[in-house]
Every structure is written in C-alpha cells, then in structure tokens.
C-alpha cells in the first residue's frame, strides 16, 4: 500500500445547501460526476493523496451538510481545519449572499490561519446570477483564493484542492504556519510506511485523561 505521505491536511467544505459541495468532493476523489446526489446528512468524509510542490499531501476532507439544521452537527468539524473550500453556486444569488455568514463561521470556529478558497460551482450552467467580477472582488476583500469550476465537467475541481494545499504548504515553508501548533489541522506524515500510527496521534495532547481509563 502506497499510503506514504509527507503532510496530512485537514480540509473542510462549507457553503449553502445545494451548491454542490458533495459533488465537488466526489469528483475530486472518484474523478466523475455524482448524478444521484442528494442532500448530505451530517458530515461525510473523503481522503486523497495529492502531489503538491514535490510533496505528497494526504487531504482529509470533511464534507459538511449545508442545511441549517445540521449546523450543530457540523460545527465541530471546523476546528483544526487547515483549509476550507467555501462553495457557492454561480446560478444562485442566495448562495453567494450567504458567503459572509459562512466565512464568519469559518473564521471563528476554525483556526485563525485557515486557508480558505472560494469556489464558484456549476460553471457549466447558463443562467448565471453571480458574475466572476463581483465574486473575485469579494474574494479579494476577504483575502481568499478564488476559482470558478464545475463538478459536472470537473473543470478546476482538482485545482481548488491543489491550490489550497499548495497555499498551506507555502505558508509552512515560510513558517507562517506551524504544523506542530495544536489545532493547525496539519500533521507530518510518518517516516515509516505505517500510516495509521500518525494519522491518529494528533489529539493525544488534547484528550482528556478519563478516556484512557481501561474498563477493567
């Protein structure tokens, strides 16, 4: 099993319901459009190893439900995310308008250094309601990377993840981000081949003592 990687990044996909978050994740992982998509319940998970800046990065991606009622379930997943995809639907003004709220959530609940990439999804559709210009203005104002793409055609889907990962990596290289800092959402990969050992050790410092008590 070639599970070896240099870094592990925790990612988050957020945005209003129906903008195509799960489809973006599905396309990124399976490389095809998910046609039978339905509303996500709670949080789903996917992971993939990508090659960025000559490094192998394992992306651990939490795909959250966009519907309001799942907020209580999804909020815990913001914590310790190194990167986030903030998704809106270019054919839905509402989903664009909601971005500010989502962004606030992300900035407050996630680590302050979180790298957020703004993704305008459904680029393949004709009836656009949000122009590229206003979205990039919003991105500029809020210090976000911005891309438009389509989970149907796959356009820029992988790029969004790669750019996000690349940005995180460059911040690590410039010491702007410290992977060892608690809740950074970043881990170093294992030197050895066994991947599991590392992907789970992160929380050790933070775990409560009573969880370690054996039942005997």
């Amino acid at each position, binding site marked *: *099993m*070639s599970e070896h990687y240099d870094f592990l990044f925790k990612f988050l996909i957020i945005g209003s319901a129906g903008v195509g978050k799960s489809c973006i994740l599905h396309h990124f*992982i*399976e*490389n095809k459009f998910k*046609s*039978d998509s*339905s*509303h996500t*319940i*709670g*949080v*789903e*998970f996917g992971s993939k190893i990508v090659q960025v800046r000559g490094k192998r990065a394992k992306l*651990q991606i*939490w795909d959250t439900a966009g*519907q*309001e*009622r*799942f907020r*209580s*379930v999804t*909020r*815990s*997943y913001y*914590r310790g995310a190194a990167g986030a995809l903030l998704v809106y639907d270019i054919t839905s003004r509402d989903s664009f308008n909601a971005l500010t709220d989502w962004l606030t959530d992300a900035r407050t609940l996630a680590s302050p250094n979180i790298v957020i990439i703004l993704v305008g999804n459904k680029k393949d559709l004709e009836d656009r309601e949000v122009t590229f210009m206003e979205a990039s203005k919003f991105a500029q104002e809020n210090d976000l990377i911005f891309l438009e793409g389509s989970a149907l055609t796959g356009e820029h889907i992988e790029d969004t993840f790669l750019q996000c990962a690349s940005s995180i990596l460059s911040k690590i290289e410039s010491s702007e981000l410290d992977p060892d800092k608690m809740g950074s959402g970043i881990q170093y990969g294992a030197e050895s081949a066994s991947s*599991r050992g590392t*992907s*789970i050790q992160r*929380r*050790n410092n*933070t*775990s*409560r003592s*009573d*969880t*370690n*008590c*054996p*039942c*005997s």
Partner: protein
Amino acid sequence: MDKIRSLIHTHQQRSIDSIEDEPILLDEKNISTKKDWEDHKDDPEEREQVMKGIDKILFTGDIDPSFKLLQELPENETDLIALEEKRRQMRLQHYFVGRKLTDELLNKKEEFNTELDRVIELEQDLQKTFAVTVDIRFSVKQAKLGLTDGAITLLGYYSQRQRLIALLNTLKTIKILHKTDERLRELIDKEDFPGAIQLCRDCQHAAVTYRQYTCIQDLNSKLKDTAVLIEEKLDEVLSVMCINFDHDRYSKITTAYLLLGKLQSAMDQLHMHFTSAIHSRTYETVYRYASNTSVDQKIQYEDLCRFVPPELYIECLSNVLTTLWGIMTSYQKMLSYHYSNNSCDEKLSQFDKNYVQQKLQLGLARIWQDVQNKVNPYLTSQDLSQFQFDDFIKVLDLVNRLIQVGQEFCGTPNIPCDLLREPLRAQSVQYFRRYHTSRTEELYMFLNMELWELLPVKPTFTTLQLNEFRFMATKNNAKKKLNEIDKSYFSEKTSSPFIFSDENVMEESFFDFQEDSDSDVNEELKKDFVEDGTNENDKGNKRKKMTSKVTFHNSSRDGPILTNTTLNVLRYIGKYMLMMDSLKPIAFDVLLSMSQLFEYYMYAVYMFFGSTNVESSNPRLAQLLLKIQSSIILGDEPRPSGINIPPPQVSDLINLHDAQNLFGLKERLIATESLVFLASQFDLWKEYLDNQIPGDKLNFLNQFYNQTLPLSKELREAVYSGVAAKAMSYGAVLQLMGNVKWEIKELMSEPNSYVYVMLQEMEAMQQKISVVSTFVPIPVEVYQMIWSLSINELCQVFLEGFGSARKCTHEGRAWMQLDFQQFIVQVDKFITIKPIPGKDVVENFIKAYYLTEADLEQWLRENYMSYTSKQLNSVINCTTGQFSKMMQRSRLSGIVDELMRKS
C-alpha cells in the same frame, strides 16, 4: 474329265444303239439272254474275268467300237453260232461294264451333287461381280461425265473443316474449364463453398476427358490448388464462426465439409479454432488497452495484463469478458445449430450427427477451461486494493457473472471455477483487509470529531432508505431478473452481460451501480426523512412553553436518536453487507469486521461516557468490553495480524463535568441511545446475514446477536449511573442529616428540613432533564432509568444518614419514617415507578429497630448484604439502646463482623 465325258458319251450312244437293237434281239431270244445276265450277276470272279477279257482298245476314245468290232470280224465268216457267241460275250461284257459304270456313278453321286452346288454358287458370285462391275463402270462413267478435279479438292477441305470444328469445341470447353477457375474464386469469395466444391469436382472430371492436352495438365494442377484454397477458406470461415457465428455461413461450410467428406476432421479442428480465437481475441483486447504504455509487441499475455492502466482495468475486463462471451455464444449457437433439425442436418448421417454433437458437448468444458485460463492471469495481474469500492464490486460482479455465464454455457452449475474464484477470493481478502482498515481509521476520526449531537432525521427514517442499503430492496428484483437473464445469456438478442450501460443498468447489474435510475424516488425519500427547518422551529416553540416538563421521545413524532457517526457506521455496514454478497467466500471475514465496527462504537461509547465500576454492576458487560479491548483496540504492542484500532478519543469539546448540564447528559443520552439504535438495526439484517454466512459460522452470528447486541441496552445503566451518582448534592443532604438528633421524646408532625432540600434537588434535576429534552426527546425508559438510579442514590443517602444515628428513640425512629414517607410521596411527582428502587431497603432498615433481640439476629443474617457494617451497627446500637445490655450489643456486633468477613 474329257475322257470320262467321252466315255459317258460313247457309252450313252452305245446304250442307245444297243437299246435300238436289243429289243429285237431280246425279242428273238428273250428268255435265254435274261438268264445269262442274271447268272453272272453276282459272280464277281466272273465279272473280273469278263472285265479282263474286254479288249482294251475298246476303251480308247478315238475308235468307234462298233466299227472296230466289225473290222475284227473274220472275213467271210458266216458262222452264226460263233457270232452269236461273240455277241453274247459282248453283251455280257457290256452288261458288266454297264453294271460297273452304274456302280461308279452311284458311288460318285454325292460328290457330284456337292460339286454341282459349288458350281452353282460360283455361278451366282460371278453374276454379282458382274452386276457390281457394271455398276462401277456406270458410276465411273457418270463421274467421268459429271465431276471435276476442283470439286474433289473442296470435299477435301470440307472434311478438314469438320475436323477443325470438333477441335474448336474442345478448345472452347478447355477455355471454359480455364475460366471456371475464375468462377470458382468468385464462388469462394461469395462463400458458396458447396457450389465451389461441386464446380471444382465437375471441372476435374471434365479435365480427365481432355487429359491428352498439355494445357489441361496445368489446369489440373490449378484445380488442385483451388481445392486446397477452398479448404483453407473453409478453415478460415470456420475460425470466423468461432467469433461471430452466422447461421447461413455456417450452414454453407458444414455442407461443404460434408461434400468433402471432412466434416469429422473439421469438428476435430474446431476446438483448436476456438482455443486460438480465445487466445488471440483476448490478447488483442488487452493489448488495445495496454498499448498506451510502451509495451513490447511480443510480450506474454500474463505480462501484458500488468500494463493495463488501473483506470481502464474495468473497461478492459468488461471488453475481455464480452469478447469471451461472444465466442461462447458462437459455440452455443453452433451447438444448437447441430441440435436443431435444419436443412443441413438432413444430409448428415445419424453417425455424423452424433459425432458432431458429442464432440461439441465434450468441447464445452474445454472451452470453459480456456476461458478461465485467460481470465485468471488478468485477475491476478493487478492489485485491486486501491480501487474504489464501487469499482471493486464491479470487478467482482463481472467475474461472478462470468461464472454464471459459464454455468449456463456448460449446462450445469457444478463447473470448475477455482481459477476465477481463487483470485477473486485473494483479491477480496486483500481488498477487504485494506478497506476495513481505512474504515476503522475513519470511524476513529468520526468518533474523535463527534460532538454527540442529535442528527435531525424524520421519524420515517429507516436505515433501508440509505443508498448503501438500497441493494437490499432491489435484491429480490435483481434475483428475479437474474433468473430471467439466466436463460438468455446466449440467446439471439442478448447483448453482452459484461457491459455497463446507462440505459439498462437494472437489467444488467445485480447491484445498482448507477444510482440515478430512480433518483427521483430516492430524492423524495431523502427529503422525507430529513426534517425541514420550519417543523423544528415549531417544536422549539412548543418546548419553551413547558420548560419544567420533560419531552419524551415519541417514535411516531421524533426520528430515531442517532449521530453523524452512527449514520456513517450504518453506511459502512451497508457497504460491508453488499460486499458480503459479492465476496461470498470471505463473507465471514466481512461479518467479523462488521461486528468490529459495532464493537468499536460500543467500546467508544463506554469509554467516553461509561462509569468505571461496571465490573461489579454488570460483569457480562465488563467481560464483553474487555474482549473488545483485547481483540481490536491498539495496545502497547500492535497485533501482528488482525485489526489494530487506536483507542477512541472523545472530542475535547465534550464536557462531562458540568453539573449544570447534568454532566453531559445530552451527549451521554445521544451516544447511548444511538448505540441502542445501531444495535436495533441489526434486526433488519438478521435474515440477510443468515443467508450470507456459511452454516458453520452461524454460531458466531448467533452469539453476536444474543450476547453482544443486547448488551448495548445494558450499557445504559453504566452510562446513566454516572449522571445519577452526581446528579444531586448528596453530600450536602447527608451533612444536613448528620445534624439531626434522633433522640427526641415527642412525635414530630413535620419532616426534617433536609427532605425539602432533597426535593429541591430533585426538582432541579428534573429541570435540567427537561432542558436536555428540548434538544433530545428522552425515551421514557431512559428517563425512568435516570430517575431510578437517582432515587436509589437518594435511598442510599437515607440509609447512610439514618445509619449514622448512634442513638435513637422510638419517636426519632418515627421521624425517620415520616421523612422517608414524605420523600416517597414526592417521588411520584417525578416518576411513577413500582416498586421504588431502594425503598424496601430503607424501610426494612427503619423497621429493624423494632425487632426483638432474637429476631434482630435473624434479620441481620438475612439482610446484612444490603447494608454496610456501619449501618448494621447503627441498628444494633439503636435497638439495644432500649435493652441497654452491653453483652447483647457486643454479641450482635460480633455476628455483624463475622457476616461481613464472610462476604
């Protein structure tokens, strides 16, 4: 001849003369003469003598005998007698000569006649010859008169022309013969082999007639070549039949082989054709996919398979199998062709027919073996463990379907398919091991992130609505479809069973890979089981109005209690069960892993929320948890084989130490009840699992169902007791109780104030529970359990408080009873539960005070287990206080000590 003639002539004349004379003479001497002749008639001697006596001269022709005789007569002799004698002598001589002549004539008559006939014949021949000659002479005369030399030359030319015409015809025939070669090729091109063979034969036959011509010899060798060509072509078409059977073409070639008398040998060749078709077509197909990479042209098939890019692996497999299926279909069609009574078969002898049928029947197993031999290396060529789940299932599905095709192909379900099943099993084990490891890692992460928030789903939600479980709903349909397909894998209109197409997914696959086929329905279902926001707000408002009231969980109004992690575990299990179906050989491994998911979840819930004293309160549960820990949880030393899941870690956002939220009651409740829900879902799958698991492993399954799953409910007590133990300020109450003096002299009408404090505490707890219930409707049984446990705790407080009394009067004892009664009455406000837990123990304790010494000893022996030694001693002290006998007191204390030691 002349002599004889003259003799005859002479004789005749003489006879005539004699006759003229003699009658006179005879008349004169008639009698005497007659006598003489008759006398001498039969006397040959005499005759001889007489004959000798005849003068020879008389026989010479030139002499007239009469004259001679007359000359000889003596001159002047007139002697009559002498004359007469002479005359008589002469007459005798004449007689004898006549006689002899007659004899001679008679003797020669036959010869004469014969000779005469020949003479006549000769005469006739002569006449004919004469006639012909006359004719010829006439014709010649005519020719000489009518024809010229030129005409004769013309005749000569004419006859030459006739001969040339005959030659021309021959040449024309030869030309046609030569041309038939073209015609033959045309026929061959049109694949009219029977016609070609017939024509070729006719040609050869004709060629024999003209074999004297040199050119025919060329033709002959050419025809021989053509005959060879025909056979080659036949062979070629036969090999095409292996890939793409065509009834008409096949009919033609079987007829042709029959004409050649080579049907049997053709059938013997057939398997070779099929084998090479399988070999070459498979190679070509794989090569098409592998050739994107730099592949050596002459690479072995086994090595070639390794070069198929993983992303094309399924497509390539699908194509390989379709190709093989096509060949198998051709074989089946060929078989059914020979079994059906069609035109060609009529020409076949029964022997031939049987031979062909038998040959084809025997070939089935060999073809299947060839097919397996080709698929096996492909299956083993790559490590599929990196595949997506759906893709991996597709591979399994394809191969399983191939086995079904093979079963139909061979006409029996008992076919060897280890070459397919074994790599499948090996890949499955490998894939599943990796898959399960990833899932447990994910589960670890999910649990780590889990905030134990209620996942809002509709009351109508059932696990079977999840995409992962849709296979269970479609399974029956699929089975039915499968049976239909079963009979039609090789029918005319069947399209490849190995192609996944968008249109007929349901028909083509056992599992619905393309989940869009009824996405509308699904969408609706999803919408249906996810609550919408407005509804929730309504509920929130309602709940606010009745803050002090607890909202109970109502299964018709509230959805099941489950968390995000629970949902994901359910999804995993759905996938595992789907795998179980596809990975029959490792179904048990999958079940084992499935149980591990549940056990890990259970272990996590206990580790996060359970109390530490489970060993004493529920040894069975403790044992199970220990077993889980020792079998799947990563310890100091990882198990070399088997699974190593790191110990679950609760999210640091979970606070179990705040009395205000009842020590995380909400989280505890959601966690525990989600576990109970998860366990309850297994009932839905029992039947399915029973069918999937091999019989010898059913024990494990039953053990899991009977011993592991039910314990999830028992975990409740371990979890809620942690709440109950701290839910109220027991210490403060106890302290208040310690201040109470029980040595009163008058009966009290009011309970002690600590009872009111207790009631306040209970009210406060109820308040907190009701707050929790606004987030999570609390199942009645959970509510009862929390209260039971809490009341039990309070009863223990009573016992402890009462048991601390060193001295007590009758009135004091009555006060105790009053306090306790007040408490019991109040309990009904919060919970209607009979019997109230701990009530008997407390009442029993209070009443022991009234026992006599002997009865008390008996009571101690019977009830010591429910009390501490301090409490028992308190009873003894208080009771014996009335008797005021030190001896009795110390004796009873001794009994208590003894009893306590025993326990």
